[in-house]
């Protein structure tokens, strides 16, 4: 999923304070799962903003609404009946959701209430960790199902570096050394010969190296 974290309240207040009516929009997808911008967080933020602004002698009307999926124009249409009553939109979705709203309602200022962080998985209750950087050319088959691009601090495709210590990364003892994990997995799978083969220099065009990426499915596209 895409993970996110709420921005500091102070920063959000600075965005919405100039407006009288704000539409606060959550999303039922990823940000709900990582407890950053679902219905509940929308409620918490609305309540917190009310109280914080009240103390500044300001009264901003905040309307709450949570969409099924904020990155999908079809669902964003749901805001049509609410948008006219708002001077600005505050979005608790990831950056994709914020931009979908901005693209749909050209004359409404849209502010992000969360910082979109990374594509991650849940390690345990309440803990999410980065697992994928969307490089566009998946290596996981060669690396025992552990991504060196997302999980090695130096993105080494032929690691580990000299800083790997007792299974931890040199940058932080709480961060696993991705190459230790890869090696352990290759051993468990009986695939240690995979390691000997050098992974060649990456073609970053499938990743961030080639400008904004797009997928077009001819059979589905209208």
């Amino acid at each position, binding site marked *: 999923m895409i993970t996110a974290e709420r921005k500091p*309240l102070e920063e959000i207040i600075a965005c919405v304070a100039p407006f009288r009516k704000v539409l606060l929009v959550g999303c039922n997808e990823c940000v709900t799962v990582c407890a950053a911008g679902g219905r*509940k967080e929308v*409620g918490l933020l609305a*309540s*917190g*903003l009310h*109280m914080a602004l009240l*103390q500044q*002698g300001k*009264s901003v009307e905040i309307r709450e609404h949570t969409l099924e999926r904020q990155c999908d124009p079809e669902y964003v249409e749901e805001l049509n009946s609410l948008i006219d009553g708002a001077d600005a939109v505050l979005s608790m979705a990831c950056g994709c959701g914020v931009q979908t709203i901005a693209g749909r309602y050209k004359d409404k200022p849209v502010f992000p209430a969360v910082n979109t962080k990374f594509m991650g998985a849940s390690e345990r209750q309440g803990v999410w960790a980065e697992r994928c950087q969307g490089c566009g050319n998946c290596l996981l088959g060669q690396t025992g199902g552990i991504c060196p691009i997302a999980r090695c601090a130096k993105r080494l495709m032929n690691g580990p570096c000299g800083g790997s210590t007792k299974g931890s990364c040199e940058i932080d003892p709480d961060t696993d050394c991705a190459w230790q994990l890869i090696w352990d997995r290759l051993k468990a799978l009986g695939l240690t010969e995979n390691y000997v083969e050098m992974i060649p220099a990456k073609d970053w065009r499938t990743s961030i190296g080639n400008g904004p990426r797009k997928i077009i499915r001819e059979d589905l596209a209208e």
Partner: protein
Amino acid sequence: MENFEPVIVAFCCHYCAYTAADMAGTQRLTYPSNVKIIRVPCSCKVDALHLVKAFEKGADGVYVAGCLKGDCHFNNGNDRAASRVAYVKKYLEELGIESERLAMFRMSAGMGFQFAQTAKDMTEKIRELGPSPINVAKAQLKGEAA
């Protein structure tokens, strides 16, 4: 504000604090009427939103009372409630409310005396802190309007 009577909301677990309140009653122990009790099936049923909304709606203090460590009827609901209270305390600070206005207490069903004492202590503490900044702001706004 010299006649300030704080409004305190206490979310009490059915299996412990709520029964302890009953016990205080049968033992004829008095506790301040400032404390409004809300019975919950487990302290962890209290959501962050309930705590925050309580302040928004006018509470000067809020507390959650759950079972003693290891005694939760649902395994570890009381511990979850404690971490949630800690989380909301930080949020309160962020939005300008002193975090001491929110607390977590633990007690058993038989601790009627402790229930009454906790209610007294919390009321005294909030009385000292004064009205919540939200209530102050609301009063100010009303005064300006009038």
